[in-house]
């Protein structure tokens, strides 16, 4: 198990937003966390990285490398964040600082984690960009000059740059059009298999779950109502809520609409 969550609660001053959550993620596994908005899945992901807002508090255990992440100091957590545990977010434009070029983003990130030589940084960055299918010209541009798909690719490049053990993807494709989403997810799937990086995939889109997930957990109102392997949950769902979700998801065949070969389309 690369990450184990036990008895996790997230509370605000007045409400309990995440209630008694347990689950584990295996190395290299694609773990899908499904639920509607407000189910608490984002809060859960934030708690893992000690990124909760100021009014929220988390209790319980989040075990990574034999340590409870919730007990770590800010400094210790900071070493892990970005290196062993990385994130990609839904708001692709918002994931980047508007007045910094992509190069500056890389540089800052690499420097923060100890990569000192600028030559090394540049090589690493350009290789990463290539691996996500972006050309080298992107390196010098500003975020506002790139499209949503391109930005998410850069996000993935950054997130996987230092070979983390787990990548937390918080609705990373929700804001993209369906073609771009497919491409991004294919890319992510390939890369994570290559690097053996686990993915905690937060989504409300059942299609993605069906396609990529190894393990599934369903969240409703702060609780996990069902979890298990993909075949078990998809083919024999037990909780009524799970059944509801599966039934209301639009059914598309494996090759997509009208049998178009999506791989031929580039973003």
């Amino acid at each position: 198990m690369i990450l184990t969550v036990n008895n996790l609660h997230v509370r605000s001053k007045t409400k309990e937003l995440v209630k008694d959550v347990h689950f584990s993620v295996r190395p290299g596994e694609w773990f899908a966390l499904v639920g509607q908005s407000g189910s608490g899945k984002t809060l859960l992901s934030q708690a893992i990285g000690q990124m909760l807002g100021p009014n929220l508090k988390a209790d319980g255990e989040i075990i990574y490398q034999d340590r409870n992440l919730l007990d770590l100091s800010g400094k210790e957590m900071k070493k892990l964040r970005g290196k062993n545990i990385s994130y990609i977010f839904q708001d692709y434009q918002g994931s980047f600082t508007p007045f910094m070029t992509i190069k500056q983003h890389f540089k800052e990130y690499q420097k923060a984690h100890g990569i000192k030589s600028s030559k090394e940084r540049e090589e690493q960055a350009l290789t990463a960009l290539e691996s996500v299918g972006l050309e080298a010209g992107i390196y010098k541009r500003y975020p506002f000059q790139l499209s949503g798909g391109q930005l998410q690719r850069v996000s993935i490049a950054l997130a996987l740059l230092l070979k983390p053990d787990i990548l937390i993807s918080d609705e990373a494709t929700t804001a993209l059009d369906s073609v771009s989403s497919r491409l991004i997810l294919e890319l992510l799937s390939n890369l994570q298999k290559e690097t053996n990086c686990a993915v905690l995939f937060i989504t409300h889109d059942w299609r993605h779950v069906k396609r990529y997930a190894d393990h599934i957990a369903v969240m409703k109102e702060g609780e996990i109502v069902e979890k298990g392997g993909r075949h078990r949950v998809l083919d024999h769902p037990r909780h009524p809520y799970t059944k509801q979700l599966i039934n209301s998801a639009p059914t598309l065949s494996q090759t997509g609409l009208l049998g178009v070969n999506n791989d031929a389309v580039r973003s």
Partner: protein
Amino acid sequence: MLKIIYRRLVEVLIFVLLITFVSFLFIRLAPGDPVLTILNVDELTVSQDQVEKLREDMGFNDPLIVQYGKWIMDYIQLDFGHSYITNQPVMDVLLAVLPATLELMLGSLVVMVVISITLGSLSALYRNTWIDQISRVFSIIGASIPSFWLGLILIDLFAVRLNWFPTMGRDSFISLILPSITLGVAMAGVYVRLIRSSLLDSLGQEFIRAARSRGIPESRIFIAHAFRHSLPPVITVFGVSMGSLIGGVVVVEVLFAYPGIGKLIVDSIRQRDYPLIQGYILIMACIVFIINTIVDISYRYVHPEIRLKGRRNG
């Protein structure tokens, strides 16, 4: 960028031309006889004939247009006339005192920037704590205090009672301190609140969270991301308040008997020394123009989107 400078230059020139013409009119039509003023300096009793002769010599009897024409010609040839009172060349007099004023402006700016960045940042980082309350009180009182009154208090406290600073003049670096604090504090009030709200806004942005998720140290996030992002509105206001800096300097100089261009001009106004006044207008126009242009340019630099407009891709 050159385009902006060019445009501004034209605007300022037109305005200066307008104002010099208007001021020219006012001077000739206003109460108070410049000839008498000139003569009075020597405290001689003069006869009517001498007055008339001087009036003729100085061209005051010529039709207005002629006078204005002569004056413009002089100005174009960079002859800015002589002070009525001291008879020294106007530009020499003005330029001699200008450095003092510039020093004072710089000193005040330093004080203002230090106070507002410190207080503004602290109150953003520790919002709703006692630091925040203090800075709120500070900024609201600071905006209500007349700078000269604050100066009087400072003089009374630090110069008269405690004797740490001189009460007036410009002897050394020390004499710059009290006037700079006076003006700097008076201006800082607005900025403290502006920086605070701008920072709070920036800190709430998504990209701050994204940077945090990459493990970037907090200090770097604060300075390179949040603070930098809060700059544009601050710079805009900064540009506008440069005006009150230039204006405020005048009052502070008079208060501290600080020999700068502000004090000079007030004295000139009282003595109706018109050539000096007109020279002052011209210099002020230049200074204002330079400052506004600098502000414009730095605004564009801070906002790469504006700079790169037209080269958008993707």
